[in-house]
């Protein structure tokens, strides 16, 4: 049943043009980051690492969280329209399948965004004439970034399910970006989803995570995902819908 729910979610996205939005934002982030790197090469001397610091800063710190919020709000948009909640809740499908199908689709879309970002980063590096080897941490940044992005996606899906307005969860997501930034600066980055993304993608500090921190990173992400999924599914089962 879950597979059929996932294919239904894909069908809903078929003519949504969401792919354009998934493409536009990483392209702009990488473009500006590369231009900034190119113009300041005398200061930014660490080649691929410096380029990552430029392209990753805006993408990982601001635009990816907002992109996630927009995608998640879009996933629930149809349910909030035309009394569709009632139709969905009376279908012979469990609440967990409804939520998990959306969660899996969002995770796949975010993986696509991360891969696109990788491709653009490599292209940008070639354009800037970087000849050195790629950073060995690159795969780690991307995978950890994806895991943290899925955690934020879980939170945003739960918010967008609860709040009918399209823009309000995006606004909350943006406020959370700044809370995350503050917690990261205060050294509490491991305890908040949005600062987990900053740490995971090596946006502000590109030093490798210690094995202890890596474990804490994985545990915190799993914890947030599990708790939010459970609460959201429980709420879907128990609370009445507003269509």
């Amino acid at each position, binding site marked *: 049943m879950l597979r059929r729910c996932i294919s239904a979610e894909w069908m809903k996205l078929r003519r949504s043009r969401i792919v354009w939005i998934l493409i*536009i934002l990483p392209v702009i982030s990488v473009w500006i980051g590369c231009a900034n790197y190119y113009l300041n090469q005398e200061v930014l001397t660490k080649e691929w690492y410096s380029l990552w610091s430029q392209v990753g800063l*805006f993408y990982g710190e601001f635009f990816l969280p907002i992109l996630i919020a*927009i995608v998640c709000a879009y996933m629930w948009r149809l349910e909030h329209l035309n009394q569709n909640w009632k139709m969905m809740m009376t279908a012979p499908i469990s609440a967990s399948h409804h939520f998990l199908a959306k969660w899996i689709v969002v995770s796949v879309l975010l993986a696509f965004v991360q891969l696109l970002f990788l491709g653009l980063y490599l292209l940008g590096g070639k354009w800037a004439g970087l000849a050195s080897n790629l950073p060995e941490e690159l795969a780690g940044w991307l995978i950890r970034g994806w895991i943290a992005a899925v955690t934020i996606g879980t939170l945003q899906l739960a918010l967008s399910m609860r709040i009918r*307005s399209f823009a309000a969860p995006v606004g909350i997501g943006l406020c959370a970006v700044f809370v995350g930034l503050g917690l990261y600066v205060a050294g509490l980055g491991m305890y908040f989803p949005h600062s987990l993304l900053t740490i995971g993608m090596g946006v502000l500090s590109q030093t490798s995570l210690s094995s202890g921190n890596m474990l804490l990173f994985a545990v915190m992400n799993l914890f947030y995902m599990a708790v939010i999924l459970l609460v959201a599914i429980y709420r879907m089962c128990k609370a009445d819908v507003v269509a």
Partner: protein
Amino acid sequence: MKVIGLELYKWRHKRLFLMVLLFLLAEIGWAFAVTRISITRNPDQAGWEPLVATISAMNGFFLPILTAICVSRICDMEHKGNTWKLLYTLSVKRSTLYMAKSVSASIVMGVALSLQALAIVAFGIVHHFAPVPIWLLTRFILGTAVTTLVLIALQQWVSMAIKNQTFALTLGMVGSFVGLVADLLPSGVSKFFVWSYYTALSPITSVYADDKLHFVIRDSSLLWPQMAALLAVGMALYGVGSVHVARREG
């Protein structure tokens, strides 16, 4: 007036002002922290100029997305509730409904900008800056307000014309990006982007010379024509948006 009153009445459970306030707190907190660090490092630069320049730069990033969110929420409630048909059957002109939405969005952003201005004055007084430069702050507020009004006109058109708010919010996000990097773009390019005017209309600009950042007060005679041109663009966007939305099927 009655239509605007009803528009405001629709928000009573929306917590719109709370969201704007949280957003503003994040922006002002960040700007003040940056200014405080700058003052600690360069005590000779403790004054209104760095503060206004920092807030202008931050506004370029924060206000486009905040405007997009506010306008989207105000317009989306009609899309979500399927109330356009209901509204269009009332004995109220479509252009009046459009104007009421525009005015109510302007009220929200006006409150936000007023709070921001008060916070700037309070920060300056607490840090014993020179007497409050009324004329400088007035120019800053005017520039920010005009840019925000134009953005409201643009966002309202998109939010009302396209039911799917993904596009309106993406436009807001792209606008934030342009606002953030506006100063890095050549002036011939940046003048075509509405979002770049948060810094372009700021009364203070920064110049890097002698290994140091200097803050220069812009000549106001250069800003007025820009402000007037921007306002004309805003009115054109409003007019085209109003006509376009009024002519389409509800």
